[in-house]
């Protein structure tokens, strides 16, 4: 019988321990991927990639890196006569780990340019260090608004998106095309709230009315009770921000609990992303989402990108693959303009700010004031083609600029 008491106390300890570090618990591997580490008499340009390859964001990090590698491989890892070396460090989507890895990249590897990360918390954590070390940093994914607002830095540019761009772009469109009363739901973390806020701001400004809001925790597994809350008479739609496993479960349960066909679902592009939809079956049919890149975009740049990506990796690119590809392209253009001399960080960021390219997602350039990207946002609708879901671009909101405050 004495075992019970001991078992019990161990159990309690464990619950506390595990719940405190459930996401951080998966911290075993550190990966060092040196791509084409050729030693040459003229030293290579080193690009540090702070991307997670373990933890919840692992697949996003992998796709970003794939996109970058694809672009540089097309250039034979050589730009303006200089070798390009990508040094990847795993952030584990953990701010503390990321800061340590950043110091390793700057002190030991002496990188010239930094890119990444996926997590906004990581981006905020490394912001001061990057700023004080004058390290040119091209944010290729993390979308937290403040990075190009209050936490703006001379050395930080963002080629991905701000949360505001994602949410705001849908607001007016939803009022015109979906209806006047919408229920808002998003995963309960900073990014989810920022996107939802931006949507509400634009939607109510257009004249719409918010029927209610609910924010389930990140990584939630059962949405039935939330869906029960949303299933009300007299609302015209549901706006949802979910990504990854949350998006799979939410969209499937939205279908299973009979809301599909009754209340239209709109949201951000991650709800029906290229790497999420195969797991959702036919449930996402009819969802309309706003996003800055889609597989189906009909431009020569995108067609070429998709074709090259599928050839190399034997799978479809995701939103993150396109982000990685774009970030690589922007850096390469800047290096070209400087004729391979990246020794002066001030000159480098100035050059980055003037880059204007036609990327797979369409024309992009930087806002000189906020350093955030100016880009088109697309409304995509999911339909069914040959038994499988496919996205189709149905509307374009051209050149969306983040207000910067």
């Amino acid at each position, binding site marked *: *019988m*004495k*075992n*019970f*008491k*001991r*078992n*019990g106390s*161990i*159990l*309690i300890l*464990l*619950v506390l321990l*595990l*719940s405190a570090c*459930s*996401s951080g*618990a*998966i911290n*075993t*591997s550190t990966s060092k991927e040196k791509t084409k580490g050729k030693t040459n008499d003229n030293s290579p340009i080193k690009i540090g990639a702070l991307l997670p390859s*373990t*933890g*919840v964001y*692992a*697949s996003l990090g*992998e796709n970003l890196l794939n996109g970058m590698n694809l672009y540089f491989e097309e250039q034979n890892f050589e730009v303006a006569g200089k070798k390009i070396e990508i040094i990847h460090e795993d952030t584990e989507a953990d701010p503390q780990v990321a800061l340590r890895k950043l110091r390793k990249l700057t002190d030991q590897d002496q990188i010239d340019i930094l890119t990444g990360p996926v997590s906004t918390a990581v981006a905020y954590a490394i912001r001061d260090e990057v700023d004080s070390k004058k390290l040119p940093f091209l944010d290729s994914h993390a979308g937290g608004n403040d990075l190009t607002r209050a936490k703006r830095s001379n050395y930080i540019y963002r080629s991905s998106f701000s949360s505001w761009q994602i949410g705001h772009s849908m607001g007016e469109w939803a009022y015109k095309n979906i209806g006047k009363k919408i229920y808002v739901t998003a995963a309960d973390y900073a990014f989810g709230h920022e996107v939802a806020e931006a949507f509400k701001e634009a939607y109510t400004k257009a004249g719409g009315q918010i029927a209610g809001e*609910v*924010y*389930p*925790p990140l*990584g939630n*597994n*059962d949405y*039935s*009770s*939330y869906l*029960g*809350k949303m*299933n009300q008479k007299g609302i015209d739609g549901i706006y949802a921000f979910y990504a*990854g*496993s949350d998006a*799979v*479960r939410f969209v*499937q*349960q939205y279908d*299973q*609990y*009979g809301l599909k066909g009754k209340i239209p679902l709109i949201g951000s592009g991650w709800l029906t992303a290229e*790497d*999420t939809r195969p*797991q*959702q*079956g036919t449930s996402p049919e009819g969802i309309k989402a706003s996003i800055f890149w889609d597989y189906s975009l009909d431009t020569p740049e995108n067609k070429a990108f998709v074709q090259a990506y599928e050839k190399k990796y034997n799978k479809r690119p995701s939103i993150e693959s396109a982000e990685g590809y774009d970030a690589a392209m922007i850096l390469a253009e800047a290096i070209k303009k400087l004729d391979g001399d990246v020794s002066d960080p001030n000159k480098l960021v100035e050059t980055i700010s003037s880059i204007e390219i036609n990327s797979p997602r369409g024309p992009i350039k930087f806002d000189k004031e906020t350093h955030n990207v100016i880009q088109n946002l697309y409304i995509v609708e999911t339909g069914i083609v040959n038994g499988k879901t496919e996205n189709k671009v149905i509307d374009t909101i051209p050149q969306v600029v983040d207000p910067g405050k």
Partner: protein
Amino acid sequence: MSALLLQLMNGLSYGVLLFIITSGITIVFGILGVLNLAHGSLYVLGSYIGYSLIMEAGLPFWVALMAVPILIAIIGLVLEIVMLRPTYKLGHLSQVLLTFGLAYIFHDIFSMMWGKNILVVNPPEALNVSVEIAGNAIPAYRLALIVIGIVMAVLLWYTQEKTKWGAVIRAGLSDKEMVGGLGVNIHFVFTCVFFLGSLMAGLGGVLGSPILGVFPGMEFQILILSLVVLVVGGLGSVTGTFIASLLVGFVETFSRYFVPELSLIITFALMALVLVARPQGLTGRRVA
């Protein structure tokens, strides 16, 4: 009214799902007293193998439901004999270290073999529909799960409380040496219980995957849920686990409906409350 009825059904189906997931670890820890932190990994492995059989090999759901638990049970058996048995003498700390290490190894194997994306298994065709109850659509698969979970609970309860095997297991937990002295091969009993626990993990893995999906890292979520249910229900009884699962299911479902902002806290608050009021768990035996 119909909204509340829907939430009631949701709570019930979520609670039963929790029971299906956690029954394996209850058996192994609650009854056997062996702390297997790799239990969540066995569950996830069950989901993954189920995914490969159903979605990739195209076998019917029922085949996977038969084959996977047996496969997982055999893997569990090998783990028990080769790795865990030497730790019985050493106490819980070495079990924690060993099985937590195993969980990490499994974690990396999962990402290598099945990738890092979430995978979802389709429920069997016949259950892939929604049933209309009092004006609310409820997925048929969830209703089926309620039935399966209750059947499992009754079977486990009967085995533990009413059969000779159950008596030997319960006796073995109270006093290993004495049971050994009475001529029972206690090692064999332990192995059998571990086999059963792993079988449950595999079963949970297959049954849970159409609702929860599967991705690397999920084993830790499963582990936390299991431990919460264990603490609330108390050690050493199937009944306790069943009641605790339903309680956690209802509390979580209704708190999400009425106070969504607090739903995460409320589950853990329930655990803390139980610990303060009844440290041995709701149905746990009193600590001697």
